[in-house]
């Protein structure tokens, strides 16, 4: 395809421009018009683009990536199984997880594991959302609709497992949407371990 070129000509200077006043007055007049419109005009005509922040808030869109949260199972334990996918995908390396195993007596032993430590350094986080994408269990989410609350201390930005679990989603839910059955609940088709070997 031939290149369609649009040459921008430099317009010559008119007298009105050269003596400053008339053209500047035009611009000023326009700005004055905007001033009167915004100050005295009816609310609908105003073009104010900002809001009174703490009193009014702009609604975050649905896809907004806020601070993280960990979803819960029905019994309130973290859905996370400490697979470390999120910390692998994290470009800022802000997630630290220590996996742990359930007791051999626990029905979940052998089926699941859990994070004994789950720590996100929200200051390092760049809010790219890769951790959410990398999570194979729907355990970590960024749908809180919250941005990071400010603090003067670094330690306050290290969110541990309990903190992350205590943050609800924007719809107020804590539960995971992952449809997998829980070991121990009647719908889980696990086989009893007592069958003998």
């Amino acid at each position, binding site marked *: 395809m031939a290149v*369609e*070129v649009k040459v*921008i000509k430099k317009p010559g200077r008119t007298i009105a421009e050269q003596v400053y006043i008339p053209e500047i007055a035009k611009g000023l007049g326009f700005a004055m018009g905007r001033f009167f419109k915004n100050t005295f005009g009816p609310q609908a005509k105003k073009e104010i683009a900002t809001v009174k922040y703490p009193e009014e808030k702009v609604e975050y869109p649905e*896809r907004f990536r806020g601070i993280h949260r960990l979803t819960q199972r029905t019994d309130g334990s973290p859905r996370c199984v400490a697979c470390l996918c999120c910390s692998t995908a994290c470009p800022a390396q802000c997630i630290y997880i220590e996996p742990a195993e359930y007791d051999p007596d626990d029905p979940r032993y052998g089926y699941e594991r859990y994070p004994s430590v789950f720590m996100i350094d929200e200051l390092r986080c760049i809010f790219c959302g890769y951790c959410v994408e990398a999570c*194979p269990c729907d355990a970590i989410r960024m749908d809180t609709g919250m941005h990071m609350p400010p603090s003067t201390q670094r330690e306050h930005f290290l969110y541990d497992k309990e903190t992350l679990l205590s943050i609800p989603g924007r719809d107020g839910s804590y539960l995971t949407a992952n*449809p997998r059955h829980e070991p121990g609940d009647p719908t889980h088709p696990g086989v009893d371990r007592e069958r003998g070997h």
Partner: protein
Amino acid sequence: MLNNVGWSLAVEKLLQIEVPERCQYYRVILGELSRIADHFTCNGASAMELGAFTPFLWLLKVRDWVWDILERETGARMTHSFGRIGGMAAPPTASFKDDVRQLIPEVHKVVKETEIMLLRNRIFLDRMQGVGVLTKEQALSYGVTGPVARSTGIPYDVRKDHPYMVYDRFDFDVPIGEDGDNWDRFMVRLEEIRQSVRIIEQAIEQMPDDGPINVDDPRIVYPDKDEVYTTIEATIAHFKLVMEGLRTPKGEVYSFTEGGNGELGFHIVSDGSGTPYRVRVRPPCWYNLAASREMLLGGMIADIIPTFGSVNMIGGECDR
């Protein structure tokens, strides 16, 4: 967004895949929106550096409206992180097209307002015209691209000269200047905003309303989340992508796109593993900034301000 897509296109070229048409239009629209945001910021900052604060804020106001759309689509205002190799992170939202259609008249309006405020003002003209001149030869020898090159009269636009994605389906002009001074750069950017709007208008009409966004290959894009939760095949595919990254064939590729400030190139050497063996980015600003020496020589100290503003240096691209 432009960077995201540029990188994705480079890897897709290496993989020899092409994303679905809907995704290409989606990428074009989001990319042009980003370009508009970039040009608004640059021109606004040029004006602000010269002391004209009001046009700056007017332009930033629209920039924020553009960002509103991008935020609705991508989930973040600035660090979009939305382009993925083989597609996008998510399909367009339901209101996407309407949002963009509503934005277009606002963009035109603010461009018009800026022209009223600045373009006939002799103070502004004196600061911009004939200042920071870059000749065509200098531009070529410095490898300058983008609006800076076009302002000198070089009609080089990757979207026209080497069309990628669906850019060859759109009717738009490449604005060029005559002298390569600050004024031309300012005007080229202003005109490019209009051209971007033209592209968006056409793309919005042509974009299919449904269809896949991502390529259908579990080796390249994450499988559907519901599948990952319940089936081992999807889980394995998911894990392989997380653990090893996306495996590309061995080889070398250079892919270039028109970024906000010029040619954005990615040179990738792959050894066949999930991480690149070597990546080199050709950032537009690095070369544009290098040429600012020629623009500033012989000028006054105070000319640095509008010249630097109109070059639109992005710090991240020059940090190398």
